[in-house]
């Protein structure tokens, strides 16, 4: 964040393109407060009906996993193939399963 108190803080913008879909990160922008962040997000990210709903989050409120640790962090999911339906053999002839 910058030293000058008149510089607007950074917000991350999430947009739901249609009812029923999830909000997706689209980018970021600077704004003095949440209300103007939403209005600016409308102007910057939805000039062609790309959105039905907007979320804005102060960038410094987001916590993230470490890319350097990613391999190890996500490793436990690797050896549990029984979590996937394809792990199981189904007798021939069984339907709808």
């Amino acid at each position, binding site marked *: *964040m910058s030293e000058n108190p008149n510089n*607007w803080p950074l917000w991350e913008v999430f947009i739901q393109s249609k009812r029923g879909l999830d909000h997706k990160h*689209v*980018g970021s922008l600077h704004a003095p407060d949440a209300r103007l962040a939403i209005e600016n997000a409308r102007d910057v990210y939805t*000039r062609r009906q790309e959105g039905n709903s907007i979320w804005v989050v102060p960038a410094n409120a987001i916590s993230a996993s470490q890319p350097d640790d990613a391999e190890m962090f996500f490793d436990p999911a690797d050896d549990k193939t029984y979590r996937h339906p394809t792990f199981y053999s189904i007798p021939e002839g069984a339907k709808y399963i």
Partner: protein
Amino acid sequence: MNIQPPVKVFKRKAKPRTLADQNKNMENQELEERFQEKVDAELKIEPKDWMPEKYRKTLVRQISQHAHSEVVGMLPEGNWIGRAPSLKRKAILLAKVQDEAGHGLYLYSAAETLGTTREKTVEDLLSGKAKYSSIFNYPTLTWADIGAVGWLVDGAAIMNQVMLCRTSYGPYARAMVRICKEESFHQRQGYEIMSVLSKGTPEQLEMAQDALNRWWWPSLMMFGPSDAESPNSAASMKWKIKRQSNDELRQIFIDRTVQQAEVIGLTIPDPDLKWNEEAKKYAWGTIDWTEFNNVVAGNGPCNKERLVARNKAHDEGAWVREAAMAYAAKKAKQKAA
């Protein structure tokens, strides 16, 4: 995601042999090899990934120059908003100029993911330290120039931007995808203006031809120096920041645009332009690089005017930025009380 320095990260301290620790012990060269492997495997590089310092610097320079170009690009077109020949053309031009502001903002955000601040980036533009595309240092003298800018300048920019949709840096590529979706309207509206003028009165046709004559060569210069003269290109290609060379893109642009000019009865101002049947492409004349270098050096027709206009807008907007912050602070205080 644009979450740069102000982000809290959960470090896994207890583990003795994390990948992070290994990285510290690795030689820079090894890190660079791993980075290159990722790039070669077409894996996008994301903000918090390790990257060579030169890669970061190249991107910061390129993305912020690109952003500045979008922003300064509003000025020559803004020049005609108040004088557009019809309400329809005025609405279209307003929408286009608003898009350019949006494109500047997408790109400034992408630059910020590399650890630069918005403030510094804007400051570099205002002080004249940062460059922007030289094409915007040419004046828009007639309404036909708005047609020529959309058709040729946006057309040339699109060639470059379509390539950049596949650039190796994730946030830049994502911004480009968004920009490209919006950009083709820009080119088509420009071509339509030229097409309408060329079918109009002899004076209108002449005006369209004159605009083409003035914008053609500067548009070709937009692709940058020829490959042989472009020392930074090799590294950018290796890192897949760029994926096609300046000369390749320029040639495709020429081949496409000549045909479009023929359709609307305009003549490309190049006596050496000739179809090469064997190579299936146009042979064409020589770019006056002295002119290009002169404009880059700050001596184009509108360099000073553009910077004065940007500084004026920035200075005159200061009280709005300050008032908005003061209001936000007051509201936050009221809420806390």
